[in-house]
């Protein structure tokens, strides 16, 4: 589904990732770990086309983004859902409108979606905040809202950067449960986290693969987790 072939990336002339070759398979559940500053966010940016590789080749749903213009890249992005480490919203719209935004933007908003949006808000336990504006949300509420927005277009892959960083264990396990549910529906999931407990919990429910960034390379972690 998303394939990296010997990809290098760095900022300026400081290399961050080197010789990354891997494939994210449809229906897979992937964790990415590594110390702070290792390049987790950087790798997720490559996966969501926020940056392009410096060397090597990456294809997304079989498409090489090098051959696409800016609109083509926007269209590819509509097939992914992303939860950022620092989630941004449109502050002048309500939470409900923000969650519906990907539908608007891709021109797919229909009245019959209103029910889906309510379900989605309940799913992340934010139905009581539907009419609040983003600056009125707490840190953990924002992360859950970002998750709801990320899945509204039924993306083929969900990418989440530290999605439980600001929420307590109980809520964190709930969020993980939501991702497992999505994965069971056939979606690919990629989660960057430093929370090894979270990974252990997930492994009880799905056969997740764990990747670790080590000295600019991405390697598969063994069974030690």
């Amino acid at each position, binding site marked *: 589904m998303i394939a990296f072939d010997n990809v290098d990336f760095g900022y300026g002339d400081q290399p961050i990732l080197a010789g990354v070759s891997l494939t994210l398979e449809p229906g897979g559940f992937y964790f990415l770990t590594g110390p702070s500053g290792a390049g987790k966010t950087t790798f997720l940016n490559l996966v969501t*086309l926020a940056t392009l590789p410096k060397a090597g080749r990456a294809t997304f749903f079989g498409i090489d983004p090098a051959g696409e213009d800016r609109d083509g890249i926007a269209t590819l992005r509509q097939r992914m859902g992303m939860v950022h480490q620092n989630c941004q919203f449109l502050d002048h719209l309500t939470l409900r*409108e923000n969650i519906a*935004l990907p539908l608007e933007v891709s021109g797919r908003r229909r009245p019959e979606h209103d029910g889906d949006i309510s379900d989605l808000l309940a799913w992340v336990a934010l139905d009581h905040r539907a009419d609040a504006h983003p600056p009125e949300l707490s840190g953990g509420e924002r992360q859950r809202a970002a998750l709801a927005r990320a899945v509204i277009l039924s993306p083929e892959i969900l990418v989440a950067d530290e999605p439980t960083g600001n929420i307590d264990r109980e809520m964190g396990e709930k969020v993980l449960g939501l991702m497992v549910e999505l994965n069971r529906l056939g979606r690919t999931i990629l989660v960057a986290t430093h929370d090894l407990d979270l990974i252990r919990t997930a492994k009880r429910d799905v056969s997740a693969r764990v990747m670790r960034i080590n000295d600019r390379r991405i390697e598969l972690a063994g069974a030690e987790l």
Partner: protein
Amino acid sequence: MKALASALSLLRGDPKADAVVPPSGATGHLTALATAALAFLTVFALAASLAADRAAARWSGALQGQSTLEVPITAEGREAQAARAERILSQTPGITRAEQLDAEQTRALLSPWIGDPSVLEAIDLPLIFALREAPDFDPAGLTQRLRGELPEAIYHRHEAWSGRIARTAGQVQWLAFTFVAICFGVTAVVVTLAARAALAMHARVIETLRVIGARDTYVARAFVRRFTLRGLTGALIGTALGLAVLAALSNGPELSALSPHGFGEWVLFAIIPLLSAILSFAATRRAAFHVLTRLA
């Protein structure tokens, strides 16, 4: 063609896309206000340019090769003087036409210099001949001959001072035209500043929209639409106000020269809101894509 189509598509309203850009409040009002004020100035600069153009045309083209012979009536008598003057003029080479003005025309010609109409009634109107001269005409020869044969005659050559008026008018015209250009330039700058303010204020909005898969035109459209409409509205108001003042002035005698003559000139002022809208459109679009292409 493609640019026009995209311009039209950008201008076409889409209330949902518009809602994506937060309301801009005071900044929006300021932009419309500045655009209106500039359009108001532009109206007068354009009016001055047109008036100067008319004056230059009247004074240069119309009077080219024209002169007047004025013969105050002496004891000799009107008819005898007229006959003498006609003979001299018909014998002077280079005078292609010499037409004696009737009493009505004479009064019309003199009245601006005299003012009180009763004076014109009171005096013995001078004889006035309107002359047309060939390009090779020699005024010194005529003056010489008049001195000998019709000494009371006053020969007015229009070219000297009409030329000066025409040149002055030409300079005023260029100055006014420069002001029109400056006003449009400042309008473009004002809209660019306002658009940049809005884009900067909403940098995160734009980034967020790109991240969730919005196309550039989707993001730009709402901004461009809003500022084009704002530039158009402001300029329409300013132009209307300016034209209203011009129309008011055209009733009083003093500055009526400034007010446009004829339908064509009035319509010309439609350029101001149109050009403001086009400049607003281009400035905002440029600013929006400038911001967008820096994002992934």
